[in-house]
């Protein structure tokens, strides 16, 4: 991330994203009115892809940070480095985005420590500024700048939850799995399989999602379907492709895997 110039963060070609409802309109309105965005949704439902599409649509650079629990404030804001006896200040991804009016997307924000996430607070309300303590500088965000977070509310860990004080600064968009029609369209496009093949995969995904009450943590995501479709397209027999991409990845529980395998063999 660091060291990459801002120009490299522009998205040149239109990413594939199938709009499902009002999400794009709302996100564009949020950008226009300078309100940050919170994306909620299960794994592999297209949160990151949506951000790419939004950045392309707005013509702004997109800077994505995958959060983890060692992420420090300096990692976000920036730090001094020594180069050839000289000290050089290097902007962190957040600063970079603020400076150039880009979009800063903090993926899986709940993975970051709570003391780190506090740094975004002044950016996320109407002050829209980023204090850089080291440099004694306060950066004001230009109107084009946008902050976006994402997280998966399906996680059950109580240690990882977003503080209400963080939450309440955002417009929240829920990106659930698309409706069957749209999901089939996405799988068809992304995996390059036929429409009927894509519909079958979506049908399988729906079957696994209805196991969520029966011990499965999450059903098959759109991303998994695309993986399965890609393998099928490359000539791997469907039953095997679905087994390795779907049933084995979803669970280690013997009964659940066996039941999903039975669904696969009923479909193919």
């Amino acid at each position, binding site marked *: 991330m660091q060291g990459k110039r801002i120009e490299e963060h522009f998205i040149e070609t239109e990413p594939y994203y199938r709009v499902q409802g009002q999400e794009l309109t709302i996100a564009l309105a949020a950008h226009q009115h300078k309100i940050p965005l919170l994306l909620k949704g299960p794994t592999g439902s297209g949160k990151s892809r949506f951000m790419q599409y939004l950045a392309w649509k707005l013509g702004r650079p997109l800077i994505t940070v995958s959060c983890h629990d060692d992420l420090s404030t300096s990692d976000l804001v920036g730090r001094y480095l020594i180069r050839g006896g000289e000290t050089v200040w290097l902007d962190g991804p957040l600063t970079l985005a603020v400076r150039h009016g880009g979009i800063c997307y903090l993926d899986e924000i709940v993975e970051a420590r709570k003391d780190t996430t506090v740094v975004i607070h002044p950016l996320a309300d109407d002050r829209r500024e980023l204090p850089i303590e080291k440099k004694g500088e306060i950066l004001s965000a230009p109107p084009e700048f946008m902050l976006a977070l994402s997280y998966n509310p399906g996680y059950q860990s*109580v240690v990882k939850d977003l503080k209400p004080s963080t939450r309440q600064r955002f417009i929240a968009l829920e990106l659930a799995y698309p409706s069957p029609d749209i999901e089939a369209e996405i799988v068809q496009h992304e995996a390059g399989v036929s429409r009927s093949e894509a519909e079958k995969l979506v049908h399988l995904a729906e079957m696994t999602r*209805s196991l969520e*009450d029966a011990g499965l943590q999450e059903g098959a995501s759109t991303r998994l379907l695309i993986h399965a479709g890609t393998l099928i397209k490359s000539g791997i027999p469907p039953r095997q492709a679905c087994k390795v991409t779907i049933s084995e990845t979803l669970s280690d529980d013997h009964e659940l895997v066996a039941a999903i395998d039975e*669904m696969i*063999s009923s479909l193919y």
Partner: protein
Amino acid sequence: MPSSADHTILARVTAIIPESELNSWEQEELVECLAPLSGRQQELILHQISVIWPVSHSLCLAFLEAAEPALACLDAEQFAAWVRAILHRYEARGLQEARRFMADLESHFICTLKGQSGLLLSTIKKRLDLYLRGVAGRPFVLEEATLPGTDTAAIFLPRNCTLFGDDDANFLVYKLMASLQWAFVRVNLYCHEVPNEQELFRKVARPGSVPPDQPVFLNRFFNLFSRPGRARAIYHFLQTFSALCFLQKKLPGLMADSTAYFQSVAAERAATMEPQSLLAGEYGFLLKQLSRNLPLELPPGPWRRLCHPASWDDSGQIFLDTARIYALWEEKPDQEVARPPWFQGTLQVEAAHARRLARRQEVEQQFIEALAIRILPALARKKEATQAPEATPAETPQQADSAADLSLRLPTPQNEPEKTGPDHNQVVRHIRLDDEKIGLDSKLQELGREIMDDLGHLPQLYLDSAEKMAAGRSYAPNLQTAGPEGAPLLGTNLYDEWDFRRQGFRHNWCRLLEKEIQPCGGTFIAATLNQQRGVIKQLKRQFEQMRSHPRFLGRQRDGDDIDLDALTEAVADQRAGLPPSERLFVRQLRDQRDIAALFLVDISSSTEGWVGKAIKESLLVMAEAMESLGDRYAIYGFSGMRRTRSEVFRVKEMDEPYTETVQGRIAALSPKEYTRMGPPIRHFSKMLATVEARVRLLIILTDGKPEDYDDYKGEYAIEDTRHALVEAKNSGIHPFCLTLDTKAPEYISHLFGAANYLVIDDVKKLPRRLPDMYRLLTS
């Protein structure tokens, strides 16, 4: 006078069962049963007693009676397998069933031993259940019956499948049968009614015949014909055709895999069937296509000419087609109808009708209750608003009340459900209370939709009942029964209780008593630790990883090592002319988890038997694992009866070390009385709130809904428990629930909120799932 032989037997018995657990008549009975047996037989039985006794004493005594005849026909290994099967029965279905199982050794056990039972439904039930739930998108109950069938809520399947030699092929048959029954439900096998029944009957019946008086539409239809059996057979054939077409479209893989099965059915029928009998050729035709996995078509000739499968979805067409074929058969008065293939199953018209009525009632009740709660606040507001200006000092309280009631009933109390969308897809989104629009939540909308799908409209009666319920009338008797003892209590550990009808607390309503448990010895601890040692070992390793995950905290003022990142930065800062940071060290974080957990265990009488045992085993396994993790934890049991005596039993306090005494207390947990959840939750929320920890968890293990002996039941109990949990959440505690109640999905997310509970459908998995859940929850 006991003989010396009796003494030796007694000594051996007491070596297995601690003397403290045996009363004198049990001792006598044991000795009496064992004395006449040979030494070897005694040996075998005594060994099994050590297995059965800890599970249930009464089962063990019943086993002793059945053991001798069983030993006459079983060898040692088979005898052990038989005992395992008995325990399985007992765990799954209770003592009565286990007795029955023991009594009928021949049919229940010996034929399984001889390998004649093929694949048993019970062995694959779990897998089939998950499969069906996924395929159907909703749960079905799987039940044993002689022939396959469905009543739209349950799917009946034979007890065993012996068609093929290997289990995989037999499983496929089960899968096909279950899928076919689901397909029947989907193609609307029990078409409950058609909109223009009179017209249909006029078209179908012979002139002059009177439509029979039958409560169920399908029976009414079949009885129009002089030979209802024939009509039934034709109708079932057409529906089977329709369901198989549906399966070919939806589950092509299943139909491709099943060709071998269809071939065998076709061959068997060709050999045994009278070719002249009605439908024999037609079924043969279907089976021929199925064996080759060709797209299904109706048999050529009159069937194809007369029937219109494409429009069977429409009202009544399938009945007209049935009548046409029936008319064709009038020329063959003497021929019998062929036996349908086995996989087709039976048509259970009455059962399906009963199920539908039961479901209708269930939905009605749920809808009324949910709606009552929904309109309660608005109703209370209105009551206040009308009471305030009208109540003059001269009026007695009764008059004021009746005035309030009148105003509620007066103009148009919610009689216009607002319908939106086209007719076939109606959703009621609002109701009206006087002039106020009240929005319905998703659960109410869903119920409303189900009611309209079923009845075609939302009866005004439901709304009236909900209003009455909300106005408190249907609850009035309940409140009165609480009257005589309705005074607030005095003393310590008193807790309020939430009354959803008044939307307020009953103050100092419940008394909670903290009680001691006398630790008990016995074989339970050693046996469990031994039996679960694999799981415990694995868990300890997993939990240790969570603990000893190398975790260094950077940028500290002092610590074990230099933080190179910080140092580099400090040097850079210094060169840049800034004051360098002094936080240059890394320190190993020793107590970064900082989690306090309290396990609250339901020990109401309903947990008797295997449930109680599984809970105790789980606690033991959990405690063992927790020791390697180092989180602080406490364990309490709760039960009690009535509001005056809610009891909690201390197994382990928060900072008490895990000792043999604690183990003994776990072993001594035994089923007590009822499940009043509110007071213990409030008690321990208060206690947890004083514990210093970053994360405070309240983990509740239960086997059912909250319920007490008095009026603490149903909605009231659920709402109080929910309120207690909300109070806990507000004081920074995370409640989480593990429940063994398979009906829990209906109410549990209302209690705990989505993703804050886990339903365990197989009690045996509890020792494994409890620590797994804890790991997931805290990492």
